[in-house]
């Protein structure tokens, strides 16, 4: 088996080198259509750092394998751990950064760009970017007019994944708005299932809860202002949003495991506990982004589209919120291989490889939706690309990492405290404002 792969790899290598030799357009007669040309990088070694673990990492390794196959370079995947900014900061400080890194927060991109740690994209990558990405996504990868990043992965963070059996047993359907949502939850609670699974051990799930409520209730303009800290967290609009969220967090009949239990539930577990047992489920609905699909696929036996379905985050105000997130690939070194990797990640080919595995949404508008493995994924991708440039990027990801992206600090911590004690809206606002002021330095 090993020799077979080695032979195949050698063959692929010779094919790529042959084709770069004659400069033909047809890449050595490969079966799939290729939309991007990459240089021959035989013997080069690069490191790609990303936060992904488990199934997401495995899927991404397939993309890296494809890159290796096409260029001959050796790619090492470096897991960053939860704290990407910390990890990269110390690597850069130590003078040995990875070639390419996936930044999960746009705030980190800005922070790093300001410190001149990021290398601007080259022409080949920019070309792919212009071809495949809408302006909204391009802008998110730039800072002060310079394009630094390619959004390889997008997340639609406004989805409620529900256990169809639990919903059917309670006789409720998809809700129209926040109020009917809460009513349905109470009905499910009456049926004997504590309905909502909150992964409160991971602070970022809580920021996503808040952001969806806030975007829908206060509107996009306020959202942008709060994201930039132009209005304070002590603003009445924040109070209103937290109070609304408190209707859910403050009712221990609605939270699976109660508030304490929710605080100790890490995100992956919040998914598995909802979709493991269908006769006596531990929870009926879990809120998070599209990547819940990956956990469902890999950690449970549930069938997406059958046992597991999705409805959009119920609207609190006038419109349903569309909050997005994403991982942006940036170059930390000026090497040829790093640039080629970025070009590849901006291409439709790379997006296609990752999309096939499921649990992944690409902001690449040129990607054929047939690449997604099921209808649920296609729907989520459609919602995202249909939103055009009307989506709002995850607020905590736009903030400096100290506020919006650090385990046990800033917004993550303040909202965990709020989940522990949902009656104390004013206290939560004060804590949020105090750490926001410190992080934004205003």
């Amino acid at each position, binding site marked *: 088996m090993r020799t077979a792969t080695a032979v195949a790899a050698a063959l692929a290598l010779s094919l790529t080198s042959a084709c770069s030799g004659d400069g033909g357009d047809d890449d050595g007669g490969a079966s799939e259509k290729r939309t991007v040309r990459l240089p021959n990088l035989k013997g080069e070694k690069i490191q790609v750092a990303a936060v992904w673990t488990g199934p997401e990492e495995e899927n991404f390794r397939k993309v890296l394998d494809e890159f290796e196959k096409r260029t001959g370079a050796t790619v090492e995947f470096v897991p960053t751990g939860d*704290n990407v*900014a*910390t990890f990269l*900061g*110390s690597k850069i*400080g130590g003078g040995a950064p990875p070639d390419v890194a996936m930044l999960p927060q746009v705030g980190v991109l800005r*922070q790093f760009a300001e410190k001149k740690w990021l290398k601007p994209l080259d022409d080949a990558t920019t070309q792919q970017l212009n071809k495949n990405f809408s302006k909204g996504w391009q802008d998110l990868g730039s800072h002060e007019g310079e394009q630094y990043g390619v959004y390889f992965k997008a997340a639609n963070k406004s989805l409620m994944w529900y256990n169809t059996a639990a919903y*059917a*047993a*309670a*006789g*409720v359907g998809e809700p129209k708005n926040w109020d009917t949502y809460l009513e349905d939850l109470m*009905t499910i*609670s*009456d*049926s*004997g*299932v*504590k309905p909502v699974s909150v992964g*409160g*051990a*991971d*602070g970022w799930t809580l920021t996503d809860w808040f952001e969806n409520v806030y975007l829908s209730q206060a509107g996009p303009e306020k959202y942008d202002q709060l994201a930039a800290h132009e209005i304070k967290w002590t603003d009445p609009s924040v109070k209103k949003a937290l109070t609304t969220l408190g209707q859910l967090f403050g009712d221990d*009949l609605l939270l699976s495991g109660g508030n*304490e*239990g929710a*605080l*100790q539930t890490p995100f992956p577990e919040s998914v598995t506990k909802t979709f493991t047992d269908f*006769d*006596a489920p531990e929870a009926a609905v879990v809120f998070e982004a599209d990547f819940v699909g990956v956990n469902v696929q890999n950690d449970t036996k549930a069938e997406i589209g059958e046992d597991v379905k999705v409805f959009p985050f119920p609207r609190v105000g006038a419109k349903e919120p569309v909050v997005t997130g994403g991982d942006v690939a940036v170059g930390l070194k000026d090497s040829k291989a790093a640039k080629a990797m970025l070009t590849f990640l901006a291409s439709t080919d790379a997006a296609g490889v990752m999309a096939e595995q499921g649990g992944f949404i690409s902001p690449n508008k040129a990607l054929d939706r047939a690449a997604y493995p099921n209808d649920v994924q296609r729907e989520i991708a459609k919602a995202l690309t249909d939103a055009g440039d009307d989506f709002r990027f995850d607020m905590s990801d736009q903030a*400096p*990492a*100290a*506020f919006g*992206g*650090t*385990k*046990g*600090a*800033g917004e*993550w*911590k303040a909202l*965990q405290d709020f989940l*522990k004690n949902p009656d104390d809206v004013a206290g939560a606002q004060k804590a949020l404002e105090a750490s926001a002021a410190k*992080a934004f330095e205003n």
Partner: protein
Amino acid sequence: MSSHITADGPGTPVADGPGGRGTPKNPAPDGRGGAKPSSGRTGPWIAAGFLLPSLLLLGALVVYPIVYSAYRSFFDASGSGFVGFDNYADVFSGDGLTAVKNTLVWVIVAPSVATAFGLLFAVLTERVRWGTAFKMVVFMPMAISMLAAGIIFGLVYQQDPDRGVANAVWTGVHDTFTDDSVFPGARPRPDAGLEKQGGAFTTEAPVEAGSPAGLPLVGIPPADVGDAGTAKEADKGSGGEVTGVVWNDFTKGGGGREGVIDPGEKALPGVKVEAVKDGKVVASAKTSGDGTYSLPKEAAGAQLRLPASNFAEPYNGVDWLGPSLVTPAIIASYIWMWAGFAMVLIAAGLAGIPRELLEAARMDGANEWQVFRKVTVPLLAPILGVVVVTLMINVLKIFDLVYIIAPSATQSDANVLALELYLSSFGGGGNQGYGSAISVVLLLLVVPMMIVNIRRLRKENSR
């Protein structure tokens, strides 16, 4: 005191090397006087040449970082603005203060408890036949990295008794003394005439014989009523009994009417029903397989109560990693690792104690406790001191266990200086000025212990 030591300490050999003249004031170096004539023949340049490599290494690897950290600690996050002692003020306020307090708790508790356990194990295993095997087992955790130990204890302290060993034991002990409730988490259908009082539910109106009282409950996990029969309306009763039915007022698939027994709704057997008059229980009964109950006629005119014991949630154990217990829990994991270390050193010291002294004490009529208390411990005092001080130095830099075991919700409650240093310097904040200030504080804390250790070492050498 300390200035005397430091001035004296490194100064002596350096002055000795190139000079080599005259008699030293200290009698201690006199013992090594035999080397003197040879050092007298070497010129100062040769001595300097031999010293240079190590001086360079020490300078580059130890002195320069310390000096630069101290310098850096007076500047802000970007490193360009001078902020005086502001960073130090930050260390003793807010998150930094929690870290300082926790570090103090660590330094006081962890070494002393670990040493106490070490002493206990060493003394107890000394005379056991399988002592060596036992010592090996106790010492084994030392072979595990802090990271692995952290992950192990993260699992041990999991809240869910099905996963965390600590809570599995704790709930196991607890549940031996309490009975399980029949329908944990059940609650009355709102507006069905049942009032919540504590964990119990009481009817608002008194019940009468001949008019069955239905007590609808909801919120019962489907698994709990899986094999229960369907509920049925209670008989009116002929002899003046008070009757009624307790049932799960939820139709699977929805569409049921509230407070009415719809077809397919399940009975709740085994629920205790009490009749209460003026705060006193006058009668009680348990529901049968079809959910009905029947109380004797004394119950007429009383209020019905479903006592809390029916619905108590299962005991969920201790919140080990909650804000109040997280630091003690992590310290316990540290002791698990390091008690073995203390034990081995103390056991070595114990082996060096002259047997005659113990025997003499016993001959004089001392019991074992007195021998231990008055002879063994005083003789071990130097070793105990070394162990405690070594552990204190070790504990000051504790980082891994806290970083790994504390969940993010309570990380700031478990914070210690080394962790705060890492998070603030290389974490989201990126404030290396503040981080440097913490490192200087840590240095200042560790210096006294170093001095104690160095002095002890000297004393040993001169003996």
